């Protein structure tokens, strides 16, 4: 079997598993759980095989198009991986194993439906990252909403119905605009570049934009700005960026553990992935124009999320706000619009998925033992559950960016890129802004360390305190092998990324360079335009320094 077919099987396997759970349900819940685990493990195994063939950059070997739907030959069932999507694809397969394992005992109501929805969700996420065709991307993108809606709404905690509806409505409203925006690009291409033929292939669209750049056929800046706003609406809600984030803490708090893990780990990345995959290559001029604004929004999100997180005493809520903060770094990296930043931003997506996904899993385990998520009711738990505390500390350190773990690599690259960008800013008047953004972003790191370490200190150290001795008076048991199995792979990958980031960065290099090349043109034009303006301004020493270099 060639790699492309293998990839297709990998995507469809969870779907088949979800269907298979229907007959399996008759055999009882044990059989359902084991089947679900077997399917996710098989999917993970296949993913590893695909990446084995793929690594480091055999894009062609994974790309394949099958004739799909109608409208002539334009819409294809095109799948393939590249450096931008490969690790997110792998992360989806990995986190789903964790999600299945953490639900093992937590879910005892309507079990077959629960696992069927989880597997459908996995199929959707794998499909999004493998999609090479715009329609296919959108189909999978929206498809992820339905299973998660039910996961939150049926198995969530007390306020679940409101949370589920809010989540669904927010994201759907945004993504419809995104879809219209993406379609407009397709029609623009049909009208102006290729002479009337429609194509929905993402790569061909990007190539067309490149080809038309600088010619009269290119999209006008105004048109690009409108489309950018449309795309931004969907992706920014998904990420979520600062003023649009209100659905996130609610959804996280109400979702069952597996839902939180997957929501934080994968679904939020659909937004930032969408920015890298669509906004940058397809709308370079608008991206360049809007980048400083988005950077501001991102950095406000970083600080806002961090400050709100500091004030939380619900564990899930705290981590949810930390997500808002951390995803700001992804966006910061992506919209720094230089190779370092793109690499850092993309890697940070994976990092955040690992650490926050892991943290949500841990909070779920804590809740199973102590039946509370209130930090004020917990203290000194490291004595009772030392293994849990160990993993908590590892994931926390990864989250705050300790050197040697994955978070450091991502944040360092992002901040480096941001500083680089700030001192080379070609847009007159924006230089100071970017410098301010860079500096504020560094404060975000400090705040991040503060609230996360404080959380660990309050919950796991100090005098022992918990509400009435766990569920049945006896001290709760420490992590079971099943739970360690759910967490250990995440920790291993964290260390792996931390000590050998190049293994993960290498495949990203090629495709991200292409993305960067797309936005480089407006950047270069901006630089040229700046020259006369810059001559008139009194130059600061630092600017001279960068110029000289």
């Amino acid at each position: 079997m060639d790699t492309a077919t293998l990839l297709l099987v990998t995507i469809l396997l969870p779907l088949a598993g979800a269907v298979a759970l229907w007959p399996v349900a008759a055999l009882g819940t044990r059989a359902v759980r084991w089947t679900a685990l077997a399917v996710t493990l098989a999917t993970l195994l296949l993913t590893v095989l695909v990446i084995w063939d793929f690594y480091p950059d055999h894009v062609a070997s994974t790309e394949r198009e099958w004739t799909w739907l109608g409208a002539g030959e334009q819409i294809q069932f095109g799948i393939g991986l590249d450096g931008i999507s490969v690790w997110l694809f792998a992360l989806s397969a990995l986190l789903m194993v964790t999600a299945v394992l953490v639900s093992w005992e937590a879910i005892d109501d309507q079990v077959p439906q629960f696992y069927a929805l989880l597997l459908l969700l996995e199929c959707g996420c794998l499909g999004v990252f493998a999609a090479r065709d715009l329609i296919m991307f959108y189909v999978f993108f929206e498809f992820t909403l339905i299973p998660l809606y039910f996961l939150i709404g049926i198995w969530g905690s007390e306020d679940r119905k409101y949370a589920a509806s809010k989540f669904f409505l927010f994201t759907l409203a945004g993504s419809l605009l995104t879809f219209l925006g993406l379609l407009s690009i397709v029609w623009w291409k049909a009208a102006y570049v290729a002479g009337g033929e429609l194509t929905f292939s993402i790569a061909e669209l990007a190539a067309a934009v490149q080809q038309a750049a600088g010619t009269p056929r290119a999209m006008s800046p105004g048109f690009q700005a409108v489309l950018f706003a449309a795309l931004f609406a969907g992706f920014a809600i998904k990420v979520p960026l600062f003023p649009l984030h209100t659905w996130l803490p609610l959804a996280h708090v109400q979702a069952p553990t597996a839902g939180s893990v997957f929501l934080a780990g994968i679904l939020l990345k659909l937004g930032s992935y969408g920015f890298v995959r669509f906004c940058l290559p397809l709308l370079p001029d608008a991206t360049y124009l809007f980048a400083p604004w988005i950077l501001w929004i991102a950095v406000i999100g970083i600080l806002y999320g961090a400050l709100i997180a500091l004030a939380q005493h619900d564990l899930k809520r705290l981590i949810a706000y930390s997500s808002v903060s951390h995803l700001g770094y992804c966006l910061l990296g992506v919209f720094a619009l230089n190779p370092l930043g793109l690499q850092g931003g993309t890697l940070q997506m994976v990092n955040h998925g690992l650490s926050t996904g892991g943290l949500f899993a841990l909070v779920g385990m804590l809740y199973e033992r102590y039946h509370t998520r209130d930090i004020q009711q917990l203290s000194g738990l490291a004595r009772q559950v030392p293994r849990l505390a160990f993993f908590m500390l590892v994931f926390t350190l990864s989250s705050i960016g300790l050197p040697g773990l994955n978070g450091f690599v991502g944040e360092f690259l992002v901040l480096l890129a941001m500083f680089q960008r700030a001192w080379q800013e070609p847009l007159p008047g924006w230089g100071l802004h970017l410098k301010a953004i860079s500096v504020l972003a560094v404060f975000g790191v400090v705040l991040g360390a503060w609230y996360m370490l404080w959380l660990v200190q309050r919950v796991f150290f100090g005098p022992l305190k918990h509400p009435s001795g766990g569920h049945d008076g006896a001290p709760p048991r420490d992590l079971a092998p099943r739970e360690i199995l759910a967490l250990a792979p995440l920790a291993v990958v964290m260390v792996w990324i931390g000590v050998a980031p190049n293994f993960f960065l290498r495949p990203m290099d090629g495709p991200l360079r292409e993305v960067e090349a797309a936005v480089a043109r407006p950047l270069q034009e901006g630089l040229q335009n700046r020259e006369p303006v810059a001559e008139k301004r009194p130059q600061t020493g630092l600017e001279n320094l960068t110029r000289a270099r």
Partner: protein
Amino acid sequence: MELHEIVSDLIIDTKGLAGGLLGAPTNTSSIALFLPELVVCATILLMLLVRLFRWGRTFHSFYVAVLGCALALAVTQPQQLLAEGGVPRIEIFTGMLVFDGFTVFLRTILLAFTVLFLILTKISGIPDREDGGDIYTLVLGAVLGMCLMASSNHLLMVFMSIEMASVPSYALAGLLKGRRLGSEAALKYSVYGAGAAGVMLYGISLLAGLVNTVHLPTMGVELAQRLPTMAPPEYMVLALAGMMVMVGLAFKLSAVPFHFWCPDVFEGAPAEVGAFLSVASKAAALALLVRVAIGLSAIVPPGLPAGQPIDQAAQTAARDLPGLFAVADEKPADNSAIGADPRAALQPMRSLLGKLIAVLAIITCTFGNLAAYGQTNIKRLLAYSTIAHAGYMMMAVPALIALAGQHPQQAQNAVSGLGIYIALYLFMNLGAFAIVAFFRNAFRSEEIADYAGLIRRCPGMVICFAAILFSLVGLPPLSGFIGKFAVFAALMDGFRLTGETYLLIVLLAGGINTAISLFYYLRVVKVMTMEPESPTRVPFALPMLSAAGMFTIAITLPTLLLILWWNWINESALGAARHLLT
């Protein structure tokens, strides 16, 4: 023209050249092309006659009806849509009706729907053996009218077919005898219907007086000649007439502001009738809207005369076949009045009609979605959802009209987008109403609140219902997405090629409406899956391994799976639209 010539023309038209008066009709003759409708007529007669005999009363009329419809579906020959070159456009019965791909497509949809609908009524047991004959007669009578609507080529036929489809529907709305709501529904429906029909007839007579013809293709030609030199009062009359005709169509489409009957009728009538009115009636009305819109806004090459072999007919097509009722049979030799491009002359008409329908579509869609939000009865909710969907489907028509001038090929694609939507909508709405009917049979309630916690009682049904509701929103990967995509693509194409901004506004309205519509569909899903079960509900069983369950699965599967393979629908719809404008 001598009388015997007219008679001979009529004979040729009706049954073809070959074989003289008594020979078998040729396959391009009016009779042959009208065969599906004739089969339906025969079925109706058979159903009525069979009950005269004692043995005929021993079995359910369902079997006669369903066999008749299946036979009619078979003689419709839907596979000819996919044939090379498409279905030729033949004007049958001296131009009163037209036979083309669109006719075949709509007939297929209507008859296939009727077969499914009949099976549904048999399973849900709405007409018992006593009533069966009456009700199925009404249903088949309405279907006959709808088939005629889809193939109307003449404003008189437009009016007659609308009436033919409506009158049985009025009776169907009052199907539940002795129920106040049902009687109220029937009364409202018929009063509204009569009013709308009157206005429409007035519009038709104004139009006939103005352009000297009511034969739709001739009307386009006439209008193209008259419009450039038309005096303002005449223009006013034309606009008025157009609007009045629209009133009749809007009533059938349940477009705002002629939608008032729809929720009341759906609430008062059984869910099965709701399914019938919301799918078949809408499909036929949309087809008719397309026909009228093309007739008023485009110049269509004349169709082939009936009764002659295709190649010979193509030659005689140039010699305009005089329709008996088509008054304008003398075309001016010089086209100087029209100018160099007769299509351009119709531009004001297109602009007017396009904007009118666009506004109607936007209002209908938005109103339907907003009003559905507050409903507590599932049938009323589905009624408003039907109104909203009529709006979505109407959105393809402004694109068609705008493109009809310079880009007939793309205009046909717009029609095919509409065709795809109709085909998919059939499964979604029939499924939704069928499940509502099964639930009603199971626990005697149609209130949304009583659906609480159904997921625990009958998970299979709820999963199917949820899939259908999400599909009605248009969420991928369910089939409703394909329909919305096809219509929106048509609008986008229209904007790209004609630069008409109102198409973009329609597109945006469609997008926003999709988001709004999620609210109320989601609410139903939420009640079914997330609310706790009411302890007072009568215990019931609705297993998937029953007739009802199997029917639900069969009707839901297309909704789930069509995303994988919908090219055949696309091809059929393209085949259906192929000779509409070229």
